C-alpha cells in the first residue's frame, strides 16, 4: 500500500532535486515502506571522510506532497558502489535510478 505512494513521492522529490541543482548527475532511490530514501550523486560535495554514507533526515510535510519522512544523502560520482550504505538501505544492487525528466 505505502510502497507505491513512497515511490511516487520519491520521484517527485528527486525531480525537485534535479531542478534545484543542475549539477546533480544522478539520483537513486532505495526501496523502503516507511521512508523516502534518495541518494544523489554530485561532484560539488567533498568525498566522505569515513567511507560511510550519512543521509540528512526530514520529517513528513504533507503540505508539500511529502507524507513520509525522507532521508537524503549526496556523494561524489566516483563513490557510487564503494561506500558503506546507511543501515537498512540494503545493497548497492538495490539502487533504482530515478532519471531526470525531460
Amino acid at each position: 500500500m505505502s510502497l507505491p505512494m513512497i515511490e511516487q513521492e520519491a520521484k517527485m522529490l528527486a525531480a525537485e532535486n534535479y531542478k534545484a541543482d543542475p549539477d546533480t548527475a544522478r539520483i537513486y532511490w532505495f526501496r523502503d515502506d516507511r521512508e523516502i530514501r534518495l541518494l544523489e550523486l554530485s561532484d560539488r560535495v567533498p568525498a566522505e571522510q569515513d567511507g560511510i554514507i550519512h543521509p540528512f533526515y526530514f520529517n513528513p510535510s504533507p503540505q508539500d506532497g511529502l507524507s513520509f519522512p525522507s532521508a537524503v544523502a549526496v556523494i561524489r560520482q566516483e563513490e557510487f558502489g564503494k561506500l558503506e550504505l546507511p543501515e537498512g538501505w540494503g545493497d548497492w544492487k538495490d539502487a533504482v535510478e530515478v532519471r531526470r525528466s525531460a
Partner: protein
Amino acid sequence: MGWREAFIKQSRSDFDIMRKLEGDRMPYAHRLHYLQMATEKLGKGWMTKANAKEHPPASHQAFVRMLQVMKGQPHVRRQLGYNNRDHFSAYINSLLDFALAVQNLAPAVAGFTRQNPEYPWRETTNSDVIAPVDFDFPNFMSAGTRKMPDLVKLVDSLLRIAE
C-alpha cells in the same frame, strides 16, 4: 531527549551565545568559534534520525553538505519563504563558499597551520605563532561583504525549522 533534539538544542545555545557576543568588545574569534560550533551541530542534528539510538558521525563536513541537500527540499524552501525554486537555489549557492570557510574553521580541519578561532596556529609565511584572540579574521570581518549577516540569518532560520 534524543540525539537529534540534543544537537539542535546545543546548536541553538551556541548560536545564541554568538549573537550575545555581537555587541561586546570581545575578540572576534569568539563569535566565529560559536558560529562554527553552531553550524557543525546543526548539520549533525539534521544528520540524525528522530529517536535515533546512535549519535551522529564525528564529521566536520556536515554543514555544507546539509546546505547542498536543503536546496532540493521543497518544505525547507517554503518555510524559508521562497516560492521560486531557482531563487532559493541561487540564495543557497551564494552562501556555499562562505559556509565552507566557516566549516573549515574547525580546529580538526585547520590543524596548527591555518587560521581558526579556537587554537593558536603557526603562520607558514613567517613562522609567527598567532593566538586567535589577537587576529582580526579579515576574510570574515570584511565590511564590504553581506555574507556573514546572510549566513547568520540562514542558520537562525534553519534552527527554527529544526526546533
